[in-house]
């Protein structure tokens, strides 16, 4: 179960992405994109994140996960197509020389935090 390790990586990424005046305790929402090719179970990742967020100083942070479908490009005929796992075969030329264009990797895309000086705005005004 490497989701716990990835959850720790997400916390590190959030911490190093926060402006200097925004404490981790102000973070209310963390959004990540997870490629469907990645061997990551979203529920397990969320469970892992929730398990460590208190000790990592962002107890109110909610992790939102957007799964990204896999797309590939045929290296022989350049056709681009959506990929239903686990068949990486070009539907046009029927060859298996396929590079993955999207659907692999875990990306931090957005952090929402309470304003350090004003009213809490949580995740109500930005979605």
């Amino acid at each position, binding site marked *: *179960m*490497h989701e*716990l*390790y*990835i959850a720790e*990586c*997400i916390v*590190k*990424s959030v911490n190093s*992405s*926060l*402006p200097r005046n*925004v404490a981790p305790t102000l973070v209310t929402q963390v959004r*990540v994109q997870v490629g469907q*090719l*990645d*061997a*990551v179970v979203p529920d397990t990742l969320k469970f892992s994140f929730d398990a460590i967020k208190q000790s990592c100083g962002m107890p109110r942070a909610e992790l939102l996960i957007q799964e990204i479908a896999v797309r590939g490009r045929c290296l022989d005929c350049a056709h681009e197509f959506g990929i239903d*796992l*686990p*068949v*990486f*075969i070009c539907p046009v030329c029927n*060859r*298996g*020389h*396929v590079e*993955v264009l999207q659907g*692999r*990797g*875990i*990306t*931090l*895309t*957005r*952090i*929402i*935090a*309470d*304003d350090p000086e004003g009213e809490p*705005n949580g995740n109500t005004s*930005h979605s």
Partner: protein
Amino acid sequence: MEIPVIRDVLEESNALAKENRAAFDRHGVFVVNIMSSPGSGKTTLLQKTIVILAARGISCAVIEGDVTSTLDSERLAPLGIPVIQANTEPFGGDCHLGSHMVQAALKYLDLPSIEILFIENIGNLVCPAEFYLGENRKVMLLSLTEGEDKPTKYPLMFRECQVCLLSKMDLAPHLDIDLDLMKSNIQKANGMIRVFPISAKTGEGLMAWLDWLVNER
């Protein structure tokens, strides 16, 4: 407030892996990350491979990954090569080797004296595929006893590797295994992966694997 970010959450891990790679390149070390399910024959493969490479005058070393125990290191010890045991237990029992663990192991290796470094990852067909350690090549084993369906169930591992060694070929006569289906499933997951049927026990196919390894170096 909203803080837009576009950031690979593994960037710190990948940065360490790049440092590892720079150290390998600086000393001309070719590094192979060996991955598979537990019990597919990684350590046995290394035992046989390293003996043949030594006979060809190629110096090897191994970073031996396990959650716990030094059993595999003890099996490799008679080879007389540097073997560094990397246990993840002190790191929380991770199911894969991380680039930070490889970096820690490098402190105990004399890189200028090594031509090929094998990283025997932790036995697991899922998690190790996710992480770049700084290696030159990723190689996996799929033993015949695991069944034809594994490429279908665990495509990332097959996507990430340049070579799939079909191990324990000596057991083929005793198993109800459809080898053509197994190979077809591998090709569906990754049409560019090289497949070498081998038996570390009988020596079948080892020369093709070794020739590939030496040529890639």
